[in-house]
């Protein structure tokens, strides 16, 4: 029982984690991307279509990553090149992504996949009692997320590229003065974020459910945006946060028979995010670690 609950928690948390890693990278460069929901949906439908025709879920995954990157260029163009309001262009991206995926996915609604992305049991490790079933007999998405979170953390905190991304979000003028092309960094970060959101979408359509229906992302893209803040822009904390949120999903179904309203449980992640922000805001707003220029358009040569 407990084993199955923990396992399902991890499964539910995986797409959230993938999306959050991407959004963390994007926001660290100073760009707020509210388009995650749309990009995820696009990734989901791209993965499904390609897997449906090629019977190869790995090609589907690649298609999702590519689709996520391509559609994110819209937000990059609007928010970086045109210095538009990021809230507005992010919303536009969500609408476009949901619309295009709905239109593209119409012929595939209700059709099953011949091949899903199968779970892989890691030899030897999966034989460990309890732990093996929980951690080492999962979908490839879970393993990828587990590797990518620390990788993103390391990249952001300890590599040259990471310093450039973070300083683009903290002080673009000074960054530009150091000879770094801020626009390029931000374009790259948005597109990288799109790749992660696309992966998260693929996770839903070719692994989690193995089918496509309109609106299958069901608000996960918005949860990702909440999680990014919950995690205080740190991929490692995102790891904890995503599985915590995933756990709440699972709990909703578990506690329902006990007479606890599932609706109140469903509120918890959102109330939790607000509380985290509140507690940190109470202590010291500087510790919030938010990229200083998050959401601010940057125009070269302007002070």
């Amino acid at each position: 029982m407990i084993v199955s609950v923990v396992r399902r928690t991890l499964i539910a948390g995986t797409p959230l984690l993938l999306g959050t890693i991407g959004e963390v990278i994007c926001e660290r460069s100073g760009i707020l991307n509210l388009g995650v929901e749309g990009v995820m949906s696009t990734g989901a439908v791209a993965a499904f279509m390609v897997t449906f025709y090629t019977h190869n879920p790995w090609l589907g995954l690649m298609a999702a990553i590519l689709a996520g990157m391509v559609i994110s260029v819209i937000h990059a163009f609007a928010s970086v090149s045109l210095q538009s309001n990021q809230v507005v262009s992010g919303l536009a991206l969500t609408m476009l992504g949901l619309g295009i995926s709905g239109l593209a996915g119409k012929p595939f609604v209700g059709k099953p996949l011949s091949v899903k992305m199968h779970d892989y049991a890691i030899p030897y490790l999966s034989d460990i009692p309890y732990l093996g079933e929980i951690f080492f007999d999962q979908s490839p998405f879970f393993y990828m997320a587990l590797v990518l979170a620390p990788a993103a953390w390391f990249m952001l905190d300890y590599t040259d590229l990471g310093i450039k991304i973070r300083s683009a979000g903290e002080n673009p003028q000074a960054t530009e003065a150091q000879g770094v092309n801020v626009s390029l960094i931000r374009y790259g970060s948005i597109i990288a974020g799109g790749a992660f959101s696309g992966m998260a979408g693929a996770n839903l359509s070719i692994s989690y459910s193995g089918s496509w229906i309109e609106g299958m992302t069901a608000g996960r893209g918005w949860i990702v945006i909440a999680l990014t803040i919950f995690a205080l822009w740190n991929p490692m904390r995102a790891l904890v946060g995503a599985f915590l949120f995933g756990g709440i999903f699972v709990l909703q179904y578990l506690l329902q028979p006990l007479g606890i309203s599932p609706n109140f449980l469903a509120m918890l992640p959102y109330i939790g995010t607000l509380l985290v922000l509140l507690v940190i805001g109470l202590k010291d707003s500087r510790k919030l670690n938010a990229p200083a220029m998050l959401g601010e358009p940057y125009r070269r040569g302007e002070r």
Partner: protein
Amino acid sequence: MIPSINITDREKITTADKVWALAFSIVAGLFFIGLIFLAFGVNPVFAIAKIFTGSFGSMYGIKETVTKAIPLILIGVGLAIAFRAKFWNIGAESQLLMGAIFGTWVGLNWGPHLPAPVIVPLMFFAGFVGGAFWGLIPAFLKIKFAINEVISTLMMNYICAEFLTFLIVGPWKGKTKFGFPYTDDLPASATLGLIPGSRIHYATLILALLTVAVLGMVIYKTRFGYEVRVIGENPEAARYAGIDFFKTTLIIMAISGGVAGFAGVGEVAGLHHYLSYPDSISSGYGFTAIIVAWLAKLNPFFVIIASIFFAGILVGGDAIQISLGLPAATVEIFNGTLLVFLIMGDYFLKHKVRFVAEPRTGHQTTKPLKTG
């Protein structure tokens, strides 16, 4: 010769420029939408024509368009004020729902004992209070704890939607609804009259137009409206000018949330007559109204026109769903693409972008370019 791009700020922007930019954005956007349709094997001319004939091409379509424009006008004008102060209220969707919850409570509990002229204003008042209450929380969180309002209003959307669902499946579940998750019907005195042959609840429509008139006056003619603009354009200057940031932000969000609450009461008392799932009370009006406010350039009077335009797209979207068998999300393509092109139009309105041939160095074969 490599052409390079020369970008300068446009110094003077005339009204004609603005109209051209808008017209160009919409036409270019529709063209692009056509390309998307073409890519997915849908006849673009037919689909786009259907959107507009479905909404503006028949009496039924026009009536439905006006019906859907009502909540958009109310929310759009509230957002226009909030956005002017650079308060990014993404939570109008739940401010509408909270208004609907408060209004319905008043209608269900007091409606049976009071005549329509008393209960209807009371419901709208309660709706305003509900929406304002829900809008004030993120305003307070922003001022006191520096919590980003985009995030908090988004979170509040989910919290409210779950709360509403809790009410209709739990304590408020109607005794006459055969176990369906709806509240009981509002008593007749607590429902709004319709223009015969349509679903236009005229009381809300009049309220919406009055709201636009009042808020338009407030923005352009009062000191408060001036303060809102200063806070949005130059918060530093606002501080020096002694504008009370705390108070002004709270008032802005009380208004923005409150008028969204009006819209919630209108939807329930005018159309549904009972509370049901969040998605059926509002089909994303809180989000569509963001584009409405943006298209209207945050001008309350233009909000009316923009609302009718987007309400038309919503109605036309229903029409192509039925006639072409396209999915419900198709309408999002319209909204999203138009929004992107509006952003682009705005940029080209504010900046002069010219492709200039880079002058060659060394030998000069052409006359030097005029400068300035």
